[in-house]
């Protein structure tokens, strides 16, 4: 059972387009240790993060899937979400934002 510490995913999504940050591979469980949300733009941006298990449809998330919704990333700031997320295989972590200025990075451990 190797534990691989890695960058799980990095995205710079387009405005108002839900985009996957990370999908847990098959036969793998993951511990997301932190998600960094960096606002490289000149204006504040709002963003949401969803966690959708493989048993649900990640393209049309339900309200229960949101762990953050409408949170603000101030211009020039990085929001550090440093709480652990324990995720089974197939789980999707996705983000959405009202601009194109946010960079999302997820870091953690894959166990397979």
């Amino acid at each position, binding site marked *: 059972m190797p534990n691989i510490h890695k960058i799980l995913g990095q995205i710079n999504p387009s405005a108002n387009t839900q985009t996957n940050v990370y999908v847990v591979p098959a036969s*793998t469980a993951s511990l997301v240790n932190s998600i960094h949300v960096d606002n490289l733009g000149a204006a504040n941006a709002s963003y949401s993060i969803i966690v959708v*298990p493989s048993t649900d449809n990640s393209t049309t998330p339900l309200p229960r899937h949101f762990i953050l919704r409408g949170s603000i990333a101030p211009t020039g700031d990085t929001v550090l979400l440093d709480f652990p*997320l324990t995720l089974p295989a197939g789980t999707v972590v996705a983000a959405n934002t009202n601009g194109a200025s946010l960079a999302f990075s997820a870091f953690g451990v894959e166990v397979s």
Partner: protein
Amino acid sequence: MGLQQITGNEIVNSSVTAADLAPGAALSNGQLSVVSSAVGVIADSAGGRLPYKILGQIQTTANVLTTIYTVPAATNTMISTITICNQSPNTVSVNVAANVSGSAVTTKNFIVSGYALGAAETLVLEPRISLNVGSILSANITGANASSNISINAFGVEII
């Protein structure tokens, strides 16, 4: 009768087969017997290998105590993280409780009570709660602006 020393040759059986080692089978040379079921093993189930879980995801109903997660049979659980996301336009009051199987939620069971969570805010708990079989994690959103538009996610490890 006094103690008798047993040599290696006296317990060797060169004709051991797989059947001899099957669970419950007895292997004997007339002096010593070994029952294979006496050797304990730890089942390596899929759940045991990859225990990280999304334990529960709910959308609350205003003023209704709702179960987020119930520990399954033959399982112990460590809850690492609970996120409570207010998707409503108002501040709401958050209550979270943990109680053992077969008991009603009373005052002593609350781990968060009356927390004022603002609009578009997320409360993150890292409670490291250990729960035994049948224990229940639940939440209630109360107060003047009680809303059904609050999502609660619980993450952790199930030990089978």
